[in-house]
């Protein structure tokens, strides 16, 4: 099966001279959930805006469902629903009207039954006659999603979907994304939270400075970069690391008050039980322990080191 989205040699330079995309090649399969992971300013929004048609293409080609987005833009765009990062709504329109408007603008016949189901799925049915201005921030975001889904797209773009979203909406959103995927929809989301990419996506593309650094199955990426760190706050500061603890390659932090141990979370034996036993034998007490995952920055550092 040909890829749902195929981007090749895509470059984009804004009028300001900013090079937003510097030669992107990317293929996204039908029915996958793809996370575009990268820091702010990496080019995530530029990339999806070009695919969706809200930003002009620089050079290169983009095909959506086999349709070139410049030559055959009608067919390409008809397949896509877009939820932009910012909430942008006609605040005077009612929920029902603004969602029905979106469907019409995409050239679809009115279908009140479909819109009713959509609004019910998004817990917006009770608010259908309310004006957007009366809704809370979370509700407005649901309206944005309803608008994007109003024309039954085969591809859904979610730009930073959970930025500033509360826990219940986040959970609803993930449930919705999964159910859409089960119906055959391809989903592309951008995020700068590694947890989000890990939880949701089948594959992750890491982007920085307008380049794709790698594309990998999410599980494989986590195995590669998912190192964790154990930090132990000591009862009594240590001046140096005892020789008996040298097999663990520990580090002393905060003037000897904290002992840090980086370990591979996916290894069969992560070495922690043995470390703690040995510390007990040596009489090194700790009052608190904590484990943390590699942050996105750590991953970038190691990626850049690898590619350099």
């Amino acid at each position, binding site marked *: 099966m040909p890829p749902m989205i195929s981007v090749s040699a895509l470059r984009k330079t*804004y*009028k300001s001279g900013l090079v937003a995309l510097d030669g992107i090649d990317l293929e996204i399969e039908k029915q996958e959930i793809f996370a575009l992971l990268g820091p702010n300013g990496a080019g995530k929004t530029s990339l999806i805006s070009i695919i*969706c*048609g*809200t*930003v*002009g293409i620089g050079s290169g080609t983009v095909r959506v469902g086999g349709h070139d987005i410049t030559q055959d*833009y*009608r*067919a*390409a*765009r*008809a397949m*896509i629903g*877009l939820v*932009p990062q*910012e909430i*942008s*709504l*006609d*605040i*005077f*329109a009612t929920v029902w*009207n603004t969602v029905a*408007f*979106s469907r*019409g*603008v*995409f*050239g*679809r*016949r009115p279908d009140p039954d479909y819109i009713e189901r959509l609004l019910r799925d998004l817990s917006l049915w009770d608010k259908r006659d309310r004006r957007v201005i009366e809704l809370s921030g979370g509700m407005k975001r649901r309206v944005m999603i309803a*608008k994007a889904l109003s024309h039954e797209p085969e591809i859904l773009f979610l730009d930073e979907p959970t930025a500033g979203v509360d826990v219940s909406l986040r959970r609803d959103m993930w449930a919705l994304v999964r159910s859409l995927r089960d119906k055959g929809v391809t989903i592309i989301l951008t995020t700068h939270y590694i947890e989000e990419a890990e939880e949701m996506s089948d594959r992750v593309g890491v982007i920085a400075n307008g380049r794709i650094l790698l594309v990998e199955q999410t599980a494989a990426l986590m195995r590669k970069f998912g190192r964790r760190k154990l930090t132990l706050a000591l009862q009594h500061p240590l001046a140096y690391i005892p020789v008996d603890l040298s097999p663990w390659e520990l580090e002393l932090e905060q003037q000897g008050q904290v002992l840090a141990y980086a370990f591979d979370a996916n290894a069969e034996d992560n070495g922690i039980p043995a470390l703690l036993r040995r510390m007990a034998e040596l009489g090194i007490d700790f009052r608190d322990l904590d484990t943390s995952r590699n942050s996105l920055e750590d991953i970038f550092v190691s990626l850049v080191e690898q590619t350099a």
Partner: protein
Amino acid sequence: MSAAKLNHHAIWTIYLAEMSRMRRTFWQSIATPVITTVLYFIVFGGAIGSRIQHVGGIGYGAFIVPGLIMLTLLTQSVSNASIGIYFPIFTKTIYEILAAPLSALEIVFAYVGAAATKSVVLALIILATATFFTPLHIQHVGWMIAFMLLTAVTFSLFGFIIGIWAQNFEQLAIIPSLVITPLTFLGGAFYSIDMLPQPWRTLNLLNPVVYLVSGFRWSFYGTGEVGVGLSLAFTGMFMAICLTLVWWIFKTGYRLKP
């Protein structure tokens, strides 16, 4: 692109949404021009007009009717169309229009069509209001309607361009108040430009509104300061300029697509 492939669902959706946005402020948008027109009739038609009597064989009250309608058509077309497109750009809801399977032509059809419709409706209301003040006899009804439509569409196109060009509400208001209204006043809405002393009369021939008002007045009374052919040619030329600018805007993505 063939006409059969036009996304008429989308055009109709935007057109209706624009019309309903106007309906929300319907009474305001009618009240202002109607009250203004009544005031013009009282001041120019009643108070001053009673001393002027005739201009080119036409009673002064009747003489100013085409000018008044033109004034409304021009200012309303520009302001409706400019707000119509500026509003979604300002609220950023334009993303949806840009991401939709719509051609530039279809976007222009929908927004300009809605703005032109509204200003023609207002012009007809003013025409009806005028009949309460002065007896009207329209010689060329077909031409009158043609001039009305042509002017509404042309200046709605112009307003569409201004709505995309404007970066704030001040800029949005500046063209109607600083350009359209003065040109209309100077353009012979309330007098015959033949009354002007030289060199103003000749200078005024550079004012495009002169040709609009004159042609429009000709459709009412069969006389105008300039030939009706020239009037049509000028309006057509201005329309062509606006269409070229709109084409350029969509070609380059100017302020719509970075």
